[in-house]
C-alpha cells in the first residue's frame, strides 16, 4: 500500500514543497496506479515518458525554490482538451488519429503552473452522455462496487473514475449540462463547474458553445479551489471569456457560512429521488443550519422546462459545432466516389449513435419552419430560468440541491435515452443560467454507492461556493475510498 496515494492534492503540494516527496516519486506512484487500475478503462492515452520528464523538471524547480502553485502534481486530462502532440479524440472514432499541434488554454495554464500530465481520460463521445457509455473505446467502470460494473457517470466519467481510483491526483473535466458534477457524485469525489466564462474554451473540443465550461474533478473542496485557481483566467482567444480577475480561492476555504442564506428550491424535491439521497439532502440542510446559515425555502418555477430546453439548445449548437468533422482536413476519412457520399460514410461511421441522435435533433430544431417552435422557444425558456435564479439570489446566497436523483447505476442498464437524460435534471438548470455549481460527496447509500450534494452560487461567486462547500465537506466527513481504487 502506497501512503503517497493517500495525500490529496493540497497535501501533496505541501509534501513536495517541504521535500518530503519528489514529483518523480509521486508521478511514478500514479503511473503505477494507472497500470494497476487499467481494467477500469479510465485512460485512453498514457504519456509515461512525458510525465516522467515533466516530473523531473518540476523537481528541479522544487529544489531551486522556483516552484509554482501546482509544481509536480500529476493530473489526468479529459480527452476533450486539445493537448499538443498528444492524441486528442473526444472519445470519438472520427478523431481517433487526431494529434493537435496546439495546447488548450486551460491545460496550458495548468502546465504553466507546474502540473504534470499523466494521460488523457475517457469521456462520453464529444461529451454527450451521462454514463460514459457512448465513448468509442468502450465503457469506463466506476471504482465503487467494482465487481458490479457500475457507471462512473458522464460525460467526464474517465476523469471521475481516475480521481476516485487514485490513478490521477486530480483531473480536468468539462461540464455542459452536468458532465462534471454528475460523475463526481457517482464516483464519490468533488466536481466543480465554474461560472460560464471563468475558464477559456479555447482548445476544448466544442460540444455546446454557450454551455461548455471546464472545471476540476478532485478529492476535496480545497483541491478543487487550488486547481481552479490555475485553470481559470481571461483569454483573448475566447470572446465569451470573462475579463474578471478571480480572487485566490485558497483564501476562502475557512470563511464559514455564518448568517449566510441557503435556498432550498421546492421544485428539486420531486418523485423519483432515491430515499437515501433525500435523507442525506436533509442532513446537509441540517449541517448548514447548525453552522449558522439561515435556511430559506425558495421557488425556481421554470425548473421543469430546463431539461427540454437543454435538449434543444445543446443539440442545436452541437449539430453545427460537429459539422467540421467532415473527413476533409483531419480525423478519419472514408473514401467515396462523390463528396456527399464521402461525408455520409465518414460521418456515418465516425460518429456513434448518441452523437448522431443529437446531430439529428439539433438539425431538426434549427430547420426552417421549426426554428421558432423549438430553438427560439428554448432560448426564451432559458432566459426565464436565468430570471428564476436572479430572483432567488435576491433572497439567498446559495442554493442547495441533490446532485443527481439516483446514485450510480449498472453499466448497460439504462438503454432508453430519455431516462438517461433525466440524470441531469438537477445540474442542467444551473448550466442554462451559466452559474457555478459544485458537487461533493456526503455519504453512501444502502448499497455502498456515493451520494453527491450540489451547491449553486451566483455568477462569479466561486469564492463563496468554496467556503460553503467546505462547511458541508467538514460536516459530512466523507472519508471512504472506493473498493476499486489503487492501493
Amino acid at each position: 500500500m502506497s501512503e503517497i496515494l493517500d495525500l490529496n492534492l493540497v497535501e501533496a503540494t505541501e509534501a513536495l514543497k517541504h521535500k518530503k516527496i519528489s514529483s518523480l516519486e509521486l508521478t511514478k506512484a500514479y503511473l503505477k496506479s494507472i497500470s494497476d487500475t487499467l481494467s477500469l478503462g479510465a485512460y485512453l492515452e498514457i504519456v509515461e515518458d512525458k510525465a516522467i520528464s515533466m516530473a523531473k523538471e518540476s523537481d528541479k524547480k522544487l529544489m531551486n525554490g522556483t516552484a509554482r502553485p501546482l509544481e509536480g502534481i500529476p493530473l489526468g486530462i479529459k480527452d476533450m482538451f486539445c493537448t499538443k502532440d498528444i492524441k486528442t479524440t473526444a472519445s470519438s472514432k472520427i478523431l481517433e488519429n487526431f494529434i493537435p499541434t496546439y495546447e488548450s488554454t486551460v491545460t496550458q495554464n495548468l502546465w504553466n503552473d507546474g502540473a504534470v500530465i499523466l494521460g488523457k481520460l475517457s469521456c462520453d463521445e464529444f461529451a454527450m452522455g451521462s454514463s460514459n457509455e457512448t465513448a468509442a473505446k468502450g465503457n469506463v467502470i466506476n471504482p465503487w462496487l467494482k465487481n458490479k460494473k457500475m457507471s462512473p457517470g458522464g460525460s467526464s466519467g474517465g476523469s471521475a473514475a481516475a480521481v476516485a481510483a487514485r490513478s490521477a491526483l486530480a483531473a480536468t473535466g468539462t461540464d455542459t449540462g452536468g458532465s462534471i458534477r454528475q460523475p463526481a457524485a457517482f464516483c464519490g469525489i468533488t466536481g466543480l463547474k465554474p461560472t460560464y466564462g471563468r475558464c477559456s474554451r479555447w482548445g476544448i473540443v466544442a460540444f455546446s458553445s454557450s454551455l461548455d465550461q471546464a472545471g476540476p474533478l478532485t478529492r476535496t473542496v480545497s483541491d478543487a479551489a487550488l486547481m481552479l485557481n490555475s485553470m481559470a483566467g481571461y483569454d483573448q482567444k475566447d470572446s465569451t471569456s470573462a475579463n474578471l480577475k478571480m480572487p485566490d480561492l485558497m483564501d476562502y476555504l475557512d470563511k464559514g457560512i455564518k448568517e449566510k442564506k441557503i435556498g432550498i428550491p421546492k421544485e428539486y424535491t420531486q418523485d423519483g429521488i432515491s430515499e437515501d439521497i433525500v435523507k442525506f439532502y436533509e442532513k446537509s440542510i441540517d449541517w448548514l443550519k447548525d453552522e449558522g446559515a439561515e435556511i430559506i425555502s425558495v421557488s425556481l418555477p421554470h425548473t421543469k422546462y430546463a431539461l427540454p430546453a437543454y435538449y434543444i439548445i445543446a443539440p442545436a449548437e452541437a449539430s453545427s459545432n460537429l459539422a467540421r468533422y467532415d473527413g476533409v482536413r483531419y480525423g478519419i476519412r472514408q473514401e467515396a466516389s462523390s463528396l456527399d457520399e464521402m461525408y455520409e460514410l465518414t460521418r456515418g461511421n465516425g460518429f456513434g449513435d448518441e452523437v448522431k441522435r443529437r446531430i439529428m435533433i439539433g438539425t431538426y430544431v434549427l430547420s426552417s419552419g421549426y426554428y421558432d417552435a423549438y430553438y427560439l422557444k428554448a432560448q426564451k425558456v432559458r432566459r426565464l430560468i436565468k430570471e428564476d435564479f436572479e430572483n432567488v439570489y435576491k433572497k439567498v446566497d446559495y442554493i442547495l440541491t441533490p446532485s443527481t436523483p439516483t446514485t450510480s447505476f449498472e453499466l448497460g442498464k439504462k438503454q432508453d435515452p430519455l431516462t438517461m437524460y433525466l440524470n441531469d435534471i438537477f445540474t442542467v438548470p444551473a448550466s442554462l443560467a451559466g452559474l457555478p455549481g459544485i458537487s461533493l460527496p456526503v455519504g453512501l447509500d444502502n448499497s455502498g454507492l456515493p451520494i453527491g450534494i450540489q451547491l449553486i452560487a451566483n455568477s462569479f461567486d466561486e469564492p463563496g461556493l468554496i467556503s460553503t462547500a467546505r462547511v458541508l465537506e467538514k460536516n459530512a466527513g466523507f472519508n471512504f475510498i472506493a473498493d476499486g481504487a489503487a492501493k
Partner: protein
Amino acid sequence: MNDTSTLKPGHIQGETGIWEMVIGLEIHAQISSKSKLFSGASASFGSEANRNVSLVDAAMPGMLPVINEFCVEQAVKTGLALNAKINNVSVFDRKNYFYADLPQGYQISQFTKPIVGEGEIIVDLDDGEQKTIGIERLHLEQDAGKSLHDQHPTKSYIDLNRTGVALMEIVSKPDIRSPQEAGAYVKKIRSILRYIGACDGNMEEGSLRADCNVSVRKSGEEFGTRCEIKNLNSIRFIIQAIQSEAERQVDILEEGGTIDQETRLFDTSTGETRSMRSKEDAHDYRYFPDPDLLPLKFTESWVQDIKEKLPELPDSLKKRLVKDFGITSYDASILVEEKDYVDFYQQAANGRDGKLTANWMITELFGALKKDNLSFSESPITSENLGELISLISNGTISGKIAKEVFSNMMKSKKSPSEIVKEKGLEQVSDDSEILKLIDQVISDNQEKVNEYLSGKDKLFGFFVGQVMKLSQGKANPGVVNKLLKEKLK
C-alpha cells in the same frame, strides 16, 4: 424581333407588350484588411495555396473566432458613406451547409440583425440623369475557400487562403430597372468604397463581386418571380447577364410558362445564364446566433467619431468641382468616379483653367491611355505635367494644335511639356512683326487668290490663315494671324 432602337434600357418588347426588368443586387466587397475577419491569418491575394491559413480558418477542434475590430470599423464607415442606419447592436449568425471549402461547416454571417440597415445612394446614368437607389442592408460575413477541380483527374484540391476573409455584403432594394442602371450602381458603390478605403474594388481579383436578382413584369404589375445570378465579377458581365436573363424570362412567360425561382450561373462564353440549383434543392441554412461570439455593440459617440473622419465623398466632391472649377456636371461626374481621377484633376487644375483641364484630362488623357491600353495609375503624364501643358496653352506659349503634338510626345517620353517645347522650338509666335513677314510671303505667293478675295470671295480668308499657319509650322498664334490678316487684306 426586338426593335431595340426605340425601347428604353431595361425594357423588352414581347409579343404581348413591353416588359420591364426589376433588379436587385447583392454586392460582396472584400474589406481592405491585412488579416481575416475572425483570425489573424493574412488576407492578402495571390499567395501560394494554403499559405494564409490559421488553426481557426482550418476549423481545427476547439478553435474560436475573435472579431477583427478594424473590419467592423470599415463596415460602419461604409454604412455611413451609404447614408445608412448604423445598428448599434448587431449579431453574428451561423449559416450552416456542408462543402469541402467551408471548413467549419458554417459561414459566420449576419442574418436577422445586420451591422448596417437601410440607406440610399444616387447614381449617375449615361443620359446625364440621376437616380436614387435604396440600400436594404449591409452585413459582415466570412468568405469561403476555393475548390480546384482541374488539378487532378479524380480529386479536388482545396485552397483555404480565402477562407475567413472579411466580406461586406451590400444588398440593394429592388429599385434597379435596367442593366445599365445596375452597372452604374455597381460603379457608384465601388467608387464610394475606394474613396473611404474600405475595399479596393478590384473586380479581377474578386475583391468585388455581385449576385443579381432579376425578374420581369409588365409595367405597373406586381413583381414577378426572380432568379438569382451568382458571382459576377465585372460590370460588363453584370450588364450582359441581366439582359440575357431578362430576355430568357420574357421568352418563357410569353410562351405561357412560369419562372422557377432558382439560382443561375452566367456563362461568359455563351453570354447566357444556366441553372445552378432549383428552389427545391435550395439549402436550409439553419441560421442561428453564433454562440462563440458576443453581439457587436457600439456607442453613438464611437459612430460619430467615425463619421467625422470620413473623407469627402463623390456626390459632394462633384458639386464642389462644378462650383470651384466651373466645369459641367457631366464632366464632374466622370472625374469623381475614381478618387485617383479627382486627386489628379485637382492638382492639374489648381490655379488654372478648370474647364480646359477637364477637357484635356477626359478627352485627351483618358483617350490616350485607353489607346495605349494603360491603367490610370500607369499614366506617363503626371498631374504636374498636364497642369503645365494647360498653362502653356492658356498663356499663349503654344497653340492648341501644337499642344496636341506636345501631349503625344509627353505620352511617349514622359518629359515635361516645357522641356519638349523648348527642345523642339515649338513656342507660339505672337510677335506682330514676325507674323507680318509670314503674311507678306503668303500674299505674294498667292496674288491671284488675294484678288479673288478682294473682289468679294470672303470664304478664302480661311485659306490665307491656313497658309500662314502652315508656313509657321503651326507655331503662329492663330488669334494674332487672324487679326493681322484682316488688317492687311482690307
